[in-house]
């Protein structure tokens, strides 16, 4: 596979690991947070954690769009989906996310018309094919997926599709990053910056991490060699006493981002004054709502949603995991009451969630963690 194989080259990875081991041997213990769930998934899928020197720890951040959806919003989605006239379209990951009493998958079994789509445009096409149905797209995701929802809204207006609407849960990456940097007990040494989000917003929005908080940040791609290269760049910055925003993912990320995508976001969405994040609480200006110009396509206005805030189950420690304060296996219910099959918390649902990635891929490797020494 072109553009994939070269970034999974074992030889290149081996050379990088040797260099990382040498640099790490001259540095104290380092904790880096990979912000993005895609990174978490890749780290476990390729078994990278066990290959890194033992004094380098990767902490999994809040960048899994499914993991940060609060229970109340899931209940709202189920309430909309339970309308007889509604066909609810969502990404497959959302089906198992627990609300207060049930999931969309259970709602589907009870008779709700819930469909899995791979793109919001598929939902729009479904609406056009079924004019007697109210097709609702359950939009989740960071700036990565938000432009495709925005584009779909523009298309819906252009094509005058009136039986389509968006239940918008899009969130933005910078506010939670700031919340983590501000959280008490913050002790991270640097960040692997999001890859896909940065293709849209560019690297400039992260400059405050280096300038105000004095932590290096390297935006990284999603293949093993990308991630190792970013770790190497972080170590190099720390060794040289630098603290900058660097870009490892140059093949798709620019400093300014994707202007067309940003324009679309500007056109179709407005920033919400505040939005609840699972485990992180309310964060100001951290989410997007459908813009007033598109209010005819806003499911929150078209349907009655309970909008009830639901406290997370007491046993669930997703919030601590999302902030990097707890490792997945340190959660009290990890792997016992909370598993990918019957998740209590969102981190166990999506394959990008730290707990699911750790449960699915990492249970054994982490037990067997092998120190890599510079001499190897």
């Amino acid at each position, binding site marked *: *596979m072109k553009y994939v194989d070269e970034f999974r080259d*074992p030889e290149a990875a081996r050379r990088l*690991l040797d260099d990382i081991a040498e640099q790490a041997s001259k540095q104290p213990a380092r904790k880096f947070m990979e912000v993005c769930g895609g990174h978490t998934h890749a780290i476990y899928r*390729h*078994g990278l954690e066990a290959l890194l020197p033992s004094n380098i720890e990767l902490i999994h951040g809040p960048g899994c769009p499914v993991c940060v959806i609060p229970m109340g919003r899931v209940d709202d989605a189920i309430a909309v989906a339970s309308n007889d006239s509604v066909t609810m379209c969502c990404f497959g990951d959302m089906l198992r996310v627990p609300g207060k009493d049930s999931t969309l998958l259970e709602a589907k079994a009870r008779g709700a018309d819930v469909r899995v789509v791979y793109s919001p445009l598929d939902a729009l096409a479904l609406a056009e094919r079924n004019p007697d149905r109210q097709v609702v797209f359950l939009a989740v995701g960071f700036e990565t997926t938000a432009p495709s929802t925005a584009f779909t809204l523009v298309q819906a207006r252009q094509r005058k599709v009136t039986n389509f609407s968006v239940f918008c849960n899009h969130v933005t990456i910078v506010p939670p990053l700031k919340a983590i940097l501000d959280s008490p007990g913050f002790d991270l040494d640097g960040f692997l910056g999001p890859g896909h989000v940065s293709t849209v917003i560019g690297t400039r929005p992260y400059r405050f991490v280096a300038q105000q908080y004095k932590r290096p940040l390297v935006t990284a791609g999603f293949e093993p060699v990308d991630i190792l290269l970013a770790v190497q760049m972080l170590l190099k910055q720390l060794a040289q006493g630098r603290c900058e925003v660097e870009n490892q993912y140059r093949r798709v990320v620019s400093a300014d981002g994707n202007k067309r995508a940003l324009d679309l976001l500007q056109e179709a969405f407005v920033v919400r004054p505040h939005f609840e994040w699972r485990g992180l609480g309310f964060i100001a200006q951290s989410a997007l709502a459908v813009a007033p110009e598109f209010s005819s396509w806003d499911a929150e206005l078209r349907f009655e949603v309970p909008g009830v805030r639901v406290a997370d189950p007491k046993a669930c420690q997703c919030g601590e995991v999302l902030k990097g304060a707890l490792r997945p296996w340190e959660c009290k219910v990890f792997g016992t009451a909370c598993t990918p099959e019957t998740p209590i918390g969102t981190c166990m649902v999506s394959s990008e969630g730290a707990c699911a990635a750790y449960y699915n891929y990492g249970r*054994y*490797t982490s037990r067997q963690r092998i120190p890599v020494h510079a001499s190897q």
Partner: protein
Amino acid sequence: MPRSDDFKAREAVLARVESWRRRAPKLTDETITMAHGAGGRASRSLIEAVIRPAFTNPALDGLEDAAVIQVDAGRMAFTTDAFVVTPRRFQGGSIGDLAVNGTVNDLAAVGAEPVALSVSLVLEEGFAVDELRAIVGDVSTAAAAADVNVVTGDTKVVERGAADGCYITTTGIGFVRPHTSLGASQVRPGDAVVLSGTVGDHGVAVMVARGDLALAADVASDTAPLHTLAKTLLEAVPETRWLRDPTRGGVASACNELAVDCGLGVELDEQALPVKGAVAGACELLGLDPLYIANEGKMLAVVPADATSRAVQAMQSCAAGAEACVIGSITDAHKGLVLVRTGFGGTRIVDMLVGDPLPRIC
């Protein structure tokens, strides 16, 4: 008119009616109706016009309540499987091919030679007779390719909306070759895990055929009977420990079942795993792991380490096993777990499939 002439004329008419009634029933309907499942004349005409001609053989042709088959003493294998795939036709096969090959392969995986199949159809009112003919034709062709007769069957019709077109259940019996002793309890540390070819072809072919992914990939389903491959392997390597055809849940789920059943660990080598470029690409785009994607014409075997090359060669000598290779080994290091060794020495757990990324794949 004299009475005798009247009588003669009536006799002639009645004789003509009788001879019409004795004619082979013709099926003129274009769609299936509830009458075709009611057991009466319409049912009979459907069976006589569509089903029996496709499967004709001595055990079936009497259309008795049950087929009677002459058997020799020995061990018999017995299996059943339901097929609800959507769409019913995809590149490389159809629900008819799957219905035969799925059951034949289940027999092959316990070391049995398939002997006879039953085919049970559940049809939705309004189903096109032409499509039924095509599906029955596929079943017939696939059964011939698998050297097995369809000896009995049933057809039911349900109201429109109560089923999705056509469901097929096949049941198969087969004779287990003497001296075959397959099972997870035979598996030992150090044994090799051999796979008969590329993974994930069937699942991706069905997904592409659904057309809702806007994916265009030139991938054909691998649906094929594996009885010859299994026979060749077992003749070449009688000490083969374990066989499984990794359908739903893919190679990952089959290996997990093995790990739990034999109480040992399975270690797979990611780089050795044969995956077609188009399948790897589609999985990469959709965030799926080819290890979890269904196959319908692949055999997974565990053989003693010293029989590895014999096993691979035996599989490769069969059309269905041309790309056979070793994909891993059995270890006592991580009991009950399946691990994949990644390209650069890292490992990850391969767990049982949770949920269903691709419902109704077979």
